[in-house]
């Protein structure tokens, strides 16, 4: 965009953006219809890779939805004004991404028409069922929190609402991590490290998404972000990226130490074809090292660098989730430890998976839902961060 594009141009651009988002969401709807009609046979998912690309998108959106609230929590729980001003936008992004992620998750079910069954039959031992409660609770709690912030008469309740959201968000991401941590037999999962790992990952991914949206929002409104604020927030993101890289490193290090897990780690880190490439190049290099350079290298770290770093962090997130979810299932389940196995059901073989267009359409449809919710909301309500001139904390 040039320095000051005329108003009518922006109006038109707004509707073009909305239409584009709608079109992508519509394509997602088409994918759902096709998968409903023909069954999952038209997706790349099979009896070995039971969760595929839609789950990568859904889990990214849900984890980031929880992480983006970190911005709000630092404001409400720890009382930092800089972040408090950004709490409404963070809450909005959280709702938008949660809506997108849940839509993908629900519409990928074998029987999406039975969502009511899931809502009325709750198995208390299932972490999935807990998550149904956690996600819907999060949704309403964040809406409540937004209300206390945006309605002046409700302002006194902002703090308790902020605390509640803070606690809920931790439990929610713990729940997301537990989905995998509770899988007793799979080599890739079943680690108590996963819930904390997901929490730290959520910090980095959520903040990255927040930076992306904030940068666009400031540019759209022809405003300049105070360099001091920008400086602080990029440093925080750097710390989160380092933290998440540490957690991922620990997860793999503990595995590497156990003889029984060596085969799996070798597969993910060295000779598993697409997975080591995605892990090292996609996640470690593009998703961590390059962003860290962009953030911390002297002379860099300006708005544009932070924007690039945030985009790369999101890209790295998708790479990591693809390796974690699909790579974790592709490595053969060890039913007979100490034996080599072969069968007609891919025992002892690396499972093959080639995602189809429908899975991507569904995933991007979820992103589009988040995009549409955000775009409409920032237009009709005031989510622009209102910074005071002097920051005291």
């Amino acid at each position, binding site marked *: 965009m040039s320095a000051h594009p005329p108003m009518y141009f922006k109006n038109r651009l707004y509707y073009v953006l909305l239409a584009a988002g709608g079109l992508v969401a519509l394509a997602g709807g088409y994918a759902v219809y096709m998968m409903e009609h023909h069954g*999952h046979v038209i997706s790349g998912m099979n*009896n070995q890779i039971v969760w595929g690309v839609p789950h990568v998108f859904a889990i990214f959106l849900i984890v980031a939805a929880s992480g983006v609230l970190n911005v709000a929590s630092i404001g409400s729980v720890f009382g930092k004004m800089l972040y408090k001003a950004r709490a409404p936008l963070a809450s909005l992004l959280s709702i938008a991404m949660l809506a997108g992620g849940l839509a993908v998750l629900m519409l990928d079910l*074998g029987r999406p028409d039975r969502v009511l069954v*899931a809502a009325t*039959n709750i198995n208390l031992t299932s972490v999935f069922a807990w998550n149904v409660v956690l996600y819907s609770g999060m949704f309403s709690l964040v809406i409540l929190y937004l209300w206390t912030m945006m309605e002046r008469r409700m302002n006194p309740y902002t703090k308790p609402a902020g605390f509640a959201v803070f606690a809920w968000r931790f439990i929610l991401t713990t729940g997301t991590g537990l989905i995998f941590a509770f899988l007793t037999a799979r080599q890739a999962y079943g680690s108590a490290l996963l819930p904390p790992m997901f929490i730290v990952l959520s910090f980095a991914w959520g903040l990255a998404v927040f930076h992306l949206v904030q940068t666009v929002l400031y540019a759209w409104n022809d405003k300049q972000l105070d360099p001091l604020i920008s400086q602080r927030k990029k440093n925080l993101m750097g710390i989160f990226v380092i933290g998440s890289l540490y957690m991922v490193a620990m997860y793999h290090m503990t595995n590497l130490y156990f003889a029984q897990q060596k085969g799996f780690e070798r597969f993910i880190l060295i000779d598993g074809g697409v997975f080591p490439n995605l892990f090292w190049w996609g996640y470690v290099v593009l998703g961590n090292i390059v962003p860290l350079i962009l953030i911390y290298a002297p002379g860099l770290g300006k708005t544009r660098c932070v924007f690039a770093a945030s985009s790369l962090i999101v890209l790295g997130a998708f790479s990591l989730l693809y390796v974690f979810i699909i790579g974790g299932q592709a490595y053969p*389940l060890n039913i007979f430890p100490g*034996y080599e196995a072969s*069968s007609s059901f891919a025992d002892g073989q690396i499972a093959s998976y080639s995602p189809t267009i429908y899975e991507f359409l569904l995933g991007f449809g979820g992103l589009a839902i988040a995009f549409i919710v955000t775009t409409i909301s920032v237009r009709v309500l005031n989510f622009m961060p209102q910074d005071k001139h002097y920051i005291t904390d």
Partner: protein
Amino acid sequence: MSEIDLKRRNFFKTSLGAAALTIAPGILLFDVAHGKPEAVSSSVRWGMLIDTANCREGCNDCVTACNKENGLSGVNNTTNAQWIRKIEIKEVSTGRQVSLPMMCQHCEHPPCVDVCPTGASFKRADGIVLVDRHRCIGCRYCMMACPYKARSFVHEVVTDQNPDVPRGKGTVESCSLCVHRIDAGLKPACAESCSNKAILFGDLNDPNSEISKKIRSVTSVQVRADLGLNTGVRYQGL
């Protein structure tokens, strides 16, 4: 029971049913049809003992019988359901080879039941782990949780099902231990079809059953016993 016997039995059953309908409408002779109106009880626990010494490599009789009984197509691709499969295993350090059938192990503490969000995965009182397809939403979490890869997802529309074995697109399924046969007093199809008598089916809770006597006298193990699931299917010679 041989196949002919079964055919005859079913013929009798349906013809008797038809006769009852025409001769004595209203007072149907439902005793001739299989199934008991009483609920199954936990005093029974169905299980199997598989003698790998009698299981021949390359023999697929149990798989074929299962496919036929349960109306599975038996097509070998990545999206097709397999309730029972033959696994050939080779001990890495010694080179010893064993062939065995693998299916739902009907655990006492089944992970699939623990993780199922809607309670569609459940364990019947007599120890059979089943999927209530009316409740299954097709999330596939149970497939992730099963340590034996016993479950399959129905990826396509199914037609011409066995009236006793309903199954359809978008739900998860697995070996039901031929629950419809057990309720009719028959053995599971795989156990019946095995020409080498490698699959012994019976009540683990009854100390006088053939299976209980045998597991008391010979060494048998549970697969992945380290997980503490207490499977209902045990293997001999592993």
